[in-house]
């Protein structure tokens, strides 16, 4: 009854513990030397520690590889350290931003702010007075109207690129790409020039929504195009072989097959414009009171609310601005996770 000992699969090429000892010693030494330098020279503080650690790590890794192997290996070690630091630098700001938003915004957050507006609240009133109901309603309006305007145009553009594939498809694709780079302030100026100056209208949520629609079209069009490209052409050919016209094939086969992807495109577009501020500053007027009519009169949106309170500058106004930012980030992140959820659930499109 002797159990046969099954040999564990060995990896002779793998790095064993003995070979990592020099690296570990070097890492510990690096940190110790850094502490020593920070302690015995005038360089003090967290910033100095980080900078010195980075420099010592660079020198140490270069020296070790250089001594053990050659100059090429030293260069490789240096670049490895730098690439890891670059990776770290990308993550750090997001961590800081999310942490600060929650820390500074949570204080002004309560259910009450979703039921009142700022119509009768002074800028230095305590945080439990007033709220951002008017801004939430405004954001809801402009995002809805912007979607209604931009989604058909965006999807039609994508259909033109994937279904009709006309002679101008390359040009159209190029211009859609360029359009996604329009500064948001220019979209605001354009709507101001058309809607206010040429047609003589006043500030309204609708004007803001039109500016946002301009910014939303390229996002919707490009994402929809990616999605429609993934629909196998077998499906289209099957539809045509059954005697369907192109219109019927697209409407009854291609679009239903791409449904979840197209919804993702719309939500991505919404996430793109929900936090836009600059075009709203030129088109919406920025009210403090709730305005239920999106086609007439000054109205507000959450980014505008944040902006106004930031410019007021009093202590409570700044706290309100941070609460607004927190609400805005929650909304954007909800939309963002929705896109992940929808496109992840189906697995294919």
């Amino acid at each position, binding site marked *: 009854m002797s159990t046969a000992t099954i040999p564990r699969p060995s990896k002779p090429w793998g790095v064993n513990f003995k070979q990592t000892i020099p690296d570990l010693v070097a890492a510990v030494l690096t940190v110790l030397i850094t502490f020593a330098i920070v302690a015995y020279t005038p360089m003090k503080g967290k*910033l100095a520690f980080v900078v010195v650690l980075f420099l010592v790590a660079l020198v140490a890794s270069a020296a070790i590889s250089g001594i053990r192997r050659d100059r*090429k*290996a030293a*260069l*490789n070690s240096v*670049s*490895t350290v730098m*690439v*890891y*630091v*670059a*990776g770290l*630098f*990308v993550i750090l700001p*997001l961590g800081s*931003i999310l942490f*600060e938003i929650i820390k500074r915004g949570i204080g002004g957050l309560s259910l009450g702010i979703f039921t009142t507006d700022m119509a009768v609240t002074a800028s230095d009133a305590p945080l439990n007075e007033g709220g951002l109901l008017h801004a939430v309603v405004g954001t809801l309006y402009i995002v809805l109207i912007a979607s209604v305007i931009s989604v*058909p*145009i965006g999807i039609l*553009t994508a*259909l033109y690129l994937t279904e*009709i594939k*006309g002679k101008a*498809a390359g040009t*159209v694709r*190029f*211009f*859609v790409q*360029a359009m996604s*780079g*329009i*500064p*948001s*302030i*220019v*979209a605001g*100026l*354009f709507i101001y*020039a*058309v809607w206010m100056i040429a047609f003589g209208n006043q500030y309204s949520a609708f004007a803001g929504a039109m500016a946002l629609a*301009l910014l939303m*079209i*390229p996002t919707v069009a490009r994402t929809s195009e990616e999605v429609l490209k993934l629909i196998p052409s077998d499906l289209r050919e099957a539809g045509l072989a059954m005697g369907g*016209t*192109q*219109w019927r094939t697209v409407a009854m086969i291609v679009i239903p097959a791409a449904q979840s992807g197209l919804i993702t495109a719309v939500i991505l577009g919404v996430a793109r414009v929900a*936090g836009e*501020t*600059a075009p709203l*500053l*030129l088109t919406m007027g920025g009210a403090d009171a709730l305005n239920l009519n999106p086609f007439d009169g000054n109205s507000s949106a959450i*980014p505008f609310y*944040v*902006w106004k309170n*930031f410019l007021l500058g009093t202590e409570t106004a700044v706290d309100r*601005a941070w609460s607004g930012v927190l609400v*805005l*980030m929650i909304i*954007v*992140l909800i939309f963002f996770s929705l896109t992940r959820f929808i496109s992840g659930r189906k697995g294919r499109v």
Partner: protein
Amino acid sequence: MSTTAPTLPPKRVITTKPRFSDKVFRAVVTGGGFSSLIILGLISLFLLYNGLNVFRTEGLKFITGFDWIVPLPEEGLPAQYGIGAMLYGTVVIGLIALFFAFPISVGAALFLSYYAPNWLKKPMVLVIDVMAAIPSIVFGLWGFFVLMPHAEYWAKLIHKYLGFIPIFDMPANAFSRSPFIAGLVLAIMIIPIITSISREIFAQTPLDRIQAAYALGATKWSMIKTVVFPYGRGGVVGGAMLGLGRAIGETVAVYTVLNIVFDIRIEVLLSAGGSVASMIVNKFGEANPDELKALMASGFVLFLVTLLINFLANFIINRTARE
């Protein structure tokens, strides 16, 4: 049994003539497809039309001059509009942003493509996507209240040790709201763009060449230097230009962290800078109809510049991606 000759059914007409419904469908879709061209055309038309008077009266001085003087009506003096200082300031903060963002983004893209352990790749791509989705006003507030105190300290250090270089000189003790700080905020905003485009380009490097480099005994860095960089150079440059385009057009985040002054200063640490986009928001509130026209003209210049940069960037990226 009588036999009748079978009558042949009439020949089926096969035609490629599209049905009426298809004609309508194709017309509607083509119309929608061209909307982006139409919108871009309308934007330039309306901004140019509104700004035309200013272009006429100011001429080339609108681009090169740096006075923005709006006299009171009772003074009866002619107004002066020149965005030279703002254009200069825009370029300066854009370049500062690229100076910080470009190495970090390329490094991060390399990290994601060739260095990161597998379990880390997905969360890090998620982090970059979330960063790209953060609204600019959030960056603005964060930049003003969180980053600025630190950045002022860094600026003082730079001035203390590198002050002999003219651009780090300080005529006055005012370190806040400088082009340096605006550039830092913009750098953080454009890092996700450059990183994700560089990563896409790096992912297209042919695997056989990478393995060939390793087989010849190359270290990871030699492989990157000899295979990845030559292959993806164009795409990375295009990505950087897209980032620059975003930085130039950014309005709100720059406005919050930059003190806008109509003057050309080479000292980047000093609290005085310019940005065309932020200037428009800055002046818009109390602009008279005449000044509004000048703002439209500025918007037109901004629109042209960003459109040009985007055209060029997309051209380079598409060409690299196709090869």
